[in-house]
């Protein structure tokens, strides 16, 4: 169940302004200690923003020539995401404008479809189908949960999990990944560890902190902490034995459940043991912050995930941000309670829409709403970039991906999905550029055609991390081509 809570306009803006403040005093004295000295250590961070961004994309099949909305009809026709220059010269679009200080470390990738979604989903879109395919490029199946709710489940892992598993086997950390979420409105997770295995994220700041930092201390662990760890290991060993004893009695279907439980118990135990080698200053924050207080939770969650990377607790982090309430809109639209509904109004602020006169106001509100999340991304980026590592910074040896299940949320378009990269993954990607995969006539700003899908980008990302995969995701009939995305390296 998705629960929402209002956020006042004034408070919202105050939160946005907060990004300009200095980063909280994290473990600045320790970040270097745990980061590796060369560009070999690569980290992967995924920002996922539910509900789409603000573009003028229609929906359509891959490899077809489409016409973007120009705003002369009901659809609003503006694109707040894409760079304003179609060439490789990166001129940041309105939503990205707050990242201008970091332009040289960004890559905006446009003209890439969620091909797996387009090839499988009814309507060529839909939230659940889009969510389950955007990061997995996998096959997906519709199902019904035990409480009668519909769900679409990916049949393969998402890119973050693939990297999590592989990086963990190369250079183990206490946590194979750190996963946090800012609650709002959404239709299910985009993160999967395998077929039918969605991955949850911590949505409560205090619980997220306890999960990752409960055993972390600035200095050598106290005898009391060592005793607690010993007790925790005894518990996990004992519980594991209980599950092992039950497993042989079960059907193969039930054994999958117990096997998954056992795997996770093993991960928990591995963490406790690995924490013995970690000392670091955990982040501080107001522990009473409730998980529905999105504007405060957002920065806290970023700080927790960032600190986990800087402390060497993990090499993979995900930050999932639901559609955040926007009831600060004035009438006649308010009080509407969903960022996504706000985006649906795109149809009504076009030239022939009922609220045509409000178009600019709507665009301003949309930009502010989407920039709020981009501000969280910036906070993370700055946090990584402020820690020297080798000849550069932690950011330089990392790769950050920002995406959403839709480009134009108002029509559920999974064409030209929003893809923003930051950090060069140890110099593997040449940053400060716009990679435009739209192969339609470049002089026609509304024409759109691509043969490229997210599976290509994720193949490139695996290659950037040193894995020579030739393809990522399902081998779906209809994919225009497989292999890495040209032009990134």
């Amino acid at each position, binding site marked *: 169940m998705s629960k929402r809570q209002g956020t006042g306009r004034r408070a919202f803006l105050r939160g946005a302004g907060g990004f300009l403040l200095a980063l909280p005093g994290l473990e600045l004295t320790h970040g270097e200690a745990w980061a590796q000295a060369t560009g070999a250590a690569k980290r992967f961070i995924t920002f996922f923003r539910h509900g789409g961004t603000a573009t003028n994309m229609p929906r359509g099949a891959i490899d077809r020539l489409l016409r973007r909305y120009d705003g002369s009809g009901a659809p609003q026709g503006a694109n707040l995401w894409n760079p304003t220059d179609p060439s490789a010269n990166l001129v940041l679009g309105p939503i990205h404008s707050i990242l201008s200080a970091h332009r040289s470390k960004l890559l905006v990738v446009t003209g890439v479809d969620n091909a797996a979604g387009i090839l499988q989903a009814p309507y060529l879109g839909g939230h659940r189908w889009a969510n389950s395919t955007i990061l997995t490029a996998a096959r997906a199946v519709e199902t019904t949960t035990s409480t009668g709710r519909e769900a679409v489940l990916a049949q393969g892992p998402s890119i973050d999990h693939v990297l999590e598993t592989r990086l963990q086997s190369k250079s183990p950390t206490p946590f194979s990944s750190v*996963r946090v979420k800012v609650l709002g409105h959404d239709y299910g997770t985009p993160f999967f560890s395998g077929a039918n295995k969605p991955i949850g994220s911590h949505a409560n700041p205090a619980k997220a902190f306890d999960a990752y930092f409960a055993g972390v201390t600035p200095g050598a662990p106290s005898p009391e902490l060592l005793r607690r760890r010993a007790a925790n290991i005894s518990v996990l060993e004992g519980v594991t034995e209980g599950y092992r004893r039950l497993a042989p009695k079960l059907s193969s279907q*039930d054994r999958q459940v117990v096997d998954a439980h056992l795997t996770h118990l093993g991960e928990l135990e591995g963490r406790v043991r690995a924490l013995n080698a970690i000392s670091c200053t955990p982040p501080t924050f107001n522990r009473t912050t409730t998980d529905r207080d999105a504007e405060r939770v957002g920065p806290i969650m970023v700080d927790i995930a960032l600190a986990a990377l800087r402390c060497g607790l993990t090499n993979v982090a995900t930050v999932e941000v639901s559609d955040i309430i926007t009831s600060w809109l004035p009438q006649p639209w308010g009080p509407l309670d969903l960022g996504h509904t706000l985006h649906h109004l795109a*149809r009504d602020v076009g030239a022939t829409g009922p609220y045509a006169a409000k178009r600019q106001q709507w665009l301003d509100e949309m930009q502010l709403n989407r920039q709020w999340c981009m501000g969280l991304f910036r906070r993370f980026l700055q946090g990584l970039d402020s820690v020297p590592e080798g000849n550069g910074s932690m950011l330089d040896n990392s790769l950050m991906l920002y995406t959403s299940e839709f480009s134009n949320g108002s029509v559920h378009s999974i064409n030209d999905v929003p893809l923003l990269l930051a950090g060069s993954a140890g110099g593997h990607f040449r940053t400060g550029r716009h990679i435009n995969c739209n192969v339609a006539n470049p002089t026609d700003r509304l024409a759109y055609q691509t043969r490229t899908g997210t599976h290509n980008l994720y193949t490139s990302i695996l290659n950037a991390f040193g894995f020579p995969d030739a393809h990522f995701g399902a081998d779906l009939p209809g994919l225009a081509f497989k292999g890495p995305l040209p032009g990134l390296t």
Partner: protein
Amino acid sequence: MRRIWLLSVIAIGGCDEPENPASQRRRVAAEDDFPPGVVVDAAPSTLRRLDARQYRNTLRDVLGLGDADVAGIQLADDEGGIPSLLTVGTIDDVTGDLVAKGAHRKLLSCDANGAPDDACAASFITTLARKAFRRPATSDETQWLTGVYESARGALDFAASIDVLARVILESPLLVYRYEEGEEREGLPEGLLRLRPHELASRLSYLLWDSIPDDGLVDAAANGRLDARGLRAEADRLASDPKARTKVVQFVTDWAELDGSPTHVSIEEAVKDPTLFPNDNPALRAAVRRETEELVGRVWDHGGSVNELFTSREAFVNGPVAQLYGVTPAPAGDTWTWTALPADQRSGLATRAAFLLVFSNADIASPIRRGAVVFRQFMCTPFPPPPPTANDVQISGGVDPTGRPLSIREVVTTTTMTAECRSCHERLNPAGFPFARYDALGQWQNAERVVGSDGTKYDVAIDATGELLGSDVAGSVDGAVQLSEKLAQSRRVKDCLTMTAWQRAMGRAVMGEEVSSVDYVKERLATTGRIRDALAAMVETPAFRYVRKAVP
């Protein structure tokens, strides 16, 4: 004398010779006393994790805690049925917190901080496992837990070792999951197993309480008293307990989706325009929730009549709720009392403020949402989601080009009778229009307030006629009171309620092997109209008491 001897020989001979299979089946069937005509079949039992509510209740009752002690425990659904790392981590955290607070210590027969006492630890294993596992621990399990204790003692003091033991039991699969093995029995149809007595007791307690069996039920299982007659008696006893009332209230609240869903918000979170509803505040939301819960509870106290659920005019109100319903004189402040609501305005569940404010917009009622929930939840007739291009801008009435004010009904009709929308909305809209006389907060209104593009406000006459098209209770109605009467009469509503209850009890959709059993429950509810009878009927069926052997 000779005759008696002959009878004895025959009797002895009967024991030595294999019983005819048909005769065995008849004997077993007679013992189980299944309802005549119901096919003796059942679905395989799958391992299923306790849901969040069951988990809270289970920890509460295993440790003898109060509701407040477990209220903050959240456990997300595992969408694919496979536990996530977050789930496993949460369980570890929750049990760690409870044990750190000493929640388990009252089950310990010695002082944890006193001298090490292995006998006390052994007794603790027996006591805690019996509750947590919903049955006595087997010797194998006792051996495992004893090993856990001894191993912990090697590194930790006595108190810490008891804590480890408690956490291992509370995190074990036998608490976290519902596992049913079943047992072979001669005379059962091929492939069927009978649930073991303790497994049956758990099915019963989770059905009626969402929690573990109490001592009485565990004893009944241990002493072989859960035959057909004993099971009926226990079901009746559990149904009379306040925990069953709580469960049924929660079930109906879930059925009506008053706690929210992926497509709408809960009673407390529904956004309302404060300028239009100055009487709205968190206390009012809490009060309308209580009013609906008390309605359902009272219905349950009377046996759970579906008719009463949809047509009762009785309401438990305080001052603000009475004012919302237009009851005079209203009780003072937070004084609660039972009252009769205006008969022409209010009927049961679907005309109460909690339901009406959830299925509304911030400022005006939503006939589409209200119509959709009637079909989807009360009749188990879902409609496909609107296509992505559907215009979901809120409809607020308005004014046509000639200056004539338009009702919400008129705008809804115009907007949704396009080729793309019509196939669903020609049924959804007429199911929602009868609610037109309730505003977005659930208050009665004699006219509808609409706003023109220049901000002018108009009062528009209300047409609350409608129909449940394509249902078993079609036919025109005028207003939600008449619509509620239709719902109360509908066989489809009762069938839907049965299906929903069965699905919740089993944690999955109804399986093919269960259809005959489920049909029997449907028939019982249709005949008596009482939820309590339906639950009793569920317990009588073979699909409730047997399981099919799982595919290895």
